[in-house]
């Protein structure tokens, strides 16, 4: 036989990661479903993933670059500076809202089938990656438009993709779990996103923050991620890896992830009874 399952209170703890691995196929297929449905349902489809960041970029370039007069601190066109920040930000905000609502949205699955629940928020973060890569098309178009060649560290970018993923999945898991129990998190998520946009260096470079405050500012994990993206794309942006605030951001993302996983596992056993 060789295949034995013991069901006891508190038992799921033991084989947690092994179980997660065993259900990887479900993870792939749920990600595939989310992606497929996302681009099937809207007639604009992929276009939508382009229009949104494009318009945001235009508005931000105008407001921060022209109105606030931040243009001219760098030799690189301001639109590119904004877009380098917008890319990870859009990913983060999509991932957070998608995964935050994912468990409640998949109620039927949760109450009718067993699988490690973490698959659901994780697969919805993957969907946001697709939008993210589509936005890269705009970045390439910007390069062409401004006849701009990115610096060599552009190849280090995948490193920051991973960091963006970590920074998003932590809060995503947290919110997903809390949303099952306390439904008003549904209203809190858009607020976090709106608020986060202003406290993250999306429309401006984090250089404008005075040096003595930079450490505190970097408690926002997105600061490190965005600085990383800027360094890869904007040739005269400073290398964040050389300064300690970056590591504060990284540490906060990792800490959030660990806490989120712990919280998620604690609550996950009751999802089927609560959702």
């Amino acid at each position, binding site marked *: 036989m060789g295949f034995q399952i013991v069901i006891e*209170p508190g038992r799921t703890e033991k084989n947690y990661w092994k179980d997660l691995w065993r259900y990887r196929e479900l993870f792939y297929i749920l990600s595939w479903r989310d992606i497929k449905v996302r681009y099937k349902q809207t007639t604009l489809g992929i276009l939508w993933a382009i229009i949104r960041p494009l318009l945001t970029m235009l508005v931000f370039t105008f407001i921060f670059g022209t109105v606030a007069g931040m243009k001219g601190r760098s030799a690189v066109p301001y639109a590119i500076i904004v877009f380098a920040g917008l890319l990870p930000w859009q990913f983060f905000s999509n991932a957070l809202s998608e995964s935050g609502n994912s468990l409640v949205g998949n109620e039927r699955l949760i109450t009718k089938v067993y699988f490690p629940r973490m698959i659901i928020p994780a697969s919805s973060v993957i969907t946001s990656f697709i939008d993210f890569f589509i936005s890269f098309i705009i970045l390439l178009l910007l390069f062409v438009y401004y006849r701009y060649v990115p610096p060599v560290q552009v190849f280090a970018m995948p490193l920051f993709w991973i960091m963006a993923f970590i920074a998003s999945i932590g809060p995503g898991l947290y919110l997903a779990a809390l949303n099952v129990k306390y439904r008003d998190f549904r209203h809190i998520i858009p607020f976090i996103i709106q608020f986060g946009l202003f406290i993250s260096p999306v429309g401006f470079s984090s250089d404008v923050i005075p040096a003595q405050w930079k450490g505190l500012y970097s408690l926002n994990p997105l600061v490190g991620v965005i600085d990383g993206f800027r360094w890869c794309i904007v040739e005269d942006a400073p290398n964040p890896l050389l300064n300690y605030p970056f590591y504060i951001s990284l540490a906060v993302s990792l800490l959030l992830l660990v806490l989120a996983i712990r919280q998620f596992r604690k609550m996950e056993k009751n999802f089927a009874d609560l959702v």
Partner: protein
Amino acid sequence: MSDIVIKAEAVGKKYIIRHEGQESYQALRDVIQQKTKGLFAKTKPVREEFWALKDINFEVRQGEAIGIIGRNGAGKSTLLKILSRITEPTEGRVTLNGRTSSLLEIGTGFHPELTGRENIFLNGAVLGMNRAEIKKKFDAIVEFSGVEKFLDTPVKRYSSGMYLRLAFSVAAHLEPEILIVDEVLAVGDTEFQKKCLGKMDEVSRNEGRTVLFVSHNTVAIESLCSRGFLIEQGKIHTEGPIKHVIDSYASLTNTFVGKGPIHKLISEGAVIQNFRFSSAGNDVYTGDKVMLGQELKIEIEITATQKLKGLSVAIDIKNSNGELYSHIINEDDGYIFPDMENGETRVVTIKTSPILYVPGDYIVDLWLGSYQTSGYYSVKNALHFSLEQSDVVGRKMPLPQHTKVYLSSTWN
């Protein structure tokens, strides 16, 4: 090595019922509110423990088909959820030896926007099949479902029958060692139901697989399962050969106990003071028999509580599942009530034609109102009688249970 594939030891599941809200989830603001209140008041919010299951012990051997029956809310679904690992037990322990799949619903994970083909893969993965396995069985699944032509159409355009057929076909091709099935066959057309039952039977009988089957359909359970449990109020009430368990279930659901008449004043107008039933010259009370082919006579004493112009009196006869068999009302039979003064009492006698329903339990409700529209007064469960077969019917065998009315006929 023992051939016991499922072993449950002292399994229990406790739920906490909060009384202030119907929803299982809370809003954070409520929690904050409660906690703040808690700072000042000594009383804790009312929480009640409820054991949905308590002390469940059983063993299932390999290749057995077990039927689980019980009334709504008895704890069957909770047990299945524990066995399927959807929810954790509060206490006790279950050991499952073998790959387990559970079908608590068919078409779980189906997405309306995706095509039939895509949904087969999606649903298969949700039920625990891997991609290679689904690919191998794909043609068989499609053939069983009979929706070949619509494979590339989004399932939202399917008729509900097609949808169910496709969903069940995926489920029927699962090859676990232990299959747990909830009441999923209650839906769908009879033809397809039969096909599905046949497939399940084949699964348990020929392939040595263990099946746990929950249903209200005792006919299906009896034909599929050899052994069973009756769950009642979270405990195993009866266990043993399926026939025995079904009989025990029948006696549990058919009791007349606690089903007295329920009087209800709907609005001012008239009230039923008293009523009396009789048949073939004998009084009939709740629990009594009425012979098939006899009439039912009903006497109702009505008092007006205001000046009434035209009164309607209705008598409903339902079977024990609540299906309405007859609706008798005075206007239909051309009887018009004379106007009544406030406080006036009148006795009306109604005699039905011979009752020719199939034998079984029936319930009579009474109703007063004005011209069939607004009600004055009702008595639910005024009588609960059992109709017995009599020599009105030529055959000595019982009439088939799935027929509803015996229609007598003349033959030449």
